């Protein structure tokens, strides 16, 4: 048995005859926050969808919490999609209750706390939320679940600095790293840098490096951005 919560073993994913990711292997130790970084189109979303069991690998295997990733692992994985997947006609409160009905591990009390922390109004319709508030609501939904694995696809993309700040703070205070593991994708590296444990750099479908972020700073004396640049040219 592996002690990893996520294991990718020689995973490739082809769309038609183009590789989105090509022969990727890595494992995630539990209780850590890991970022997938890399340019647009490098395969970050594909990796997250594979880990969420939403798509199947063309070859290789993806294991989550000891089971092969498939649709049914949704009960153990909280997935924050980059796309807008909320019903516009629900209010914030109805969206929360709807999600509480979908997932057995949804913690309504925690959701209330996070909503309050985020300063979201319960009675507002999703359709009337600003982009920043939509981002806040999506984070609330992901963090309210006691799922062992939380996947977030670009949780900060397109949000203003205030929204990004409150989202990062809510991650610090509401993720229980004693029982949860986080994998998120981002290209706003400097913003999330202080909350990361690990970083995986993807470049055109291949892993260029996996490293402990403190080690990048300690041993190479580099910021994550400089490290990414350095390994991407090799």
């Amino acid at each position, binding site marked *: 048995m592996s002690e990893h919560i996520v294991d990718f073993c020689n995973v490739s994913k082809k769309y038609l005859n183009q590789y989105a990711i090509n022969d990727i292997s890595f494992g995630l130790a539990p*209780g*850590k*926050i890991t970022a997938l970084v890399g340019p647009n189109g490098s395969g970050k979303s594909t990796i997250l969808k594979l880990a969420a069991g939403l798509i199947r690998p063309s070859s290789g295997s993806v294991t989550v919490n000891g089971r092969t990733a498939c649709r049914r692992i949704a009960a153990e994985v909280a997935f924050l999609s980059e796309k807008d997947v909320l019903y516009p006609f629900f209010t914030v409160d109805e969206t929360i209750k709807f999600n509480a009905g979908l997932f057995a591990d949804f913690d309504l009390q925690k959701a209330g706390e996070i909503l309050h922390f985020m300063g979201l109004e319960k009675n507002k319709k999703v359709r009337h939320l600003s982009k920043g508030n939509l981002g806040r609501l999506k984070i609330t939904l992901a963090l309210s679940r006691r799922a062992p694995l939380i996947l977030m696809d670009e949780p900060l993309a397109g949000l203003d600095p205030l929204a990004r*700040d409150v989202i*990062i*703070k809510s991650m*610090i*205070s509401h993720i229980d*790293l004693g029982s949860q593991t986080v994998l998120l994708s981002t290209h706003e590296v*400097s913003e999330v*840098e*202080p*909350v*990361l*444990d690990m970083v995986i750099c993807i470049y055109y479908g291949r892993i260029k490096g996996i490293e402990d972020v*403190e080690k990048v*700073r*300690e041993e190479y*004396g*580099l*910021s*994550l951005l*400089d490290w990414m640049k350095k390994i991407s040219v090799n």
Partner: protein
Amino acid sequence: MRGKFDNTKPIYLQILQRLCRQLVRGEIKTGQKLPSIREMALHMGVNPNTIQRVYNELEQMEIAETRRGLGSYVTENEERLSRLREDLKREQICRFVKDMRESGFNPGEIIEGVDNELKIQASKEAKGV
């Protein structure tokens, strides 16, 4: 945010240094309870695992101790804290002197320069700047 970090140096070390300075300045007192890991993580804007590492280091340095189920406390050992104060002083002076010598200043010039600077700063403080 309170946590502006130099992103080319390990964050746990930077926080460790900050806490040590606060101790030396007396902003954190002997025997005082340190914030919980989560509180400190939120305050600094960093990963709780990083704070855990800081607290572990402080414990290994015998500057803090973890009491089971109660949290982390600053040691009441005054001798250890004055040693920390001395270490911090030496470390900074050492770095400064090395820099100065590499820039070509001799010991007499360094002492005179420091002496002058102290006088300038003291007179500024006296004027309430």
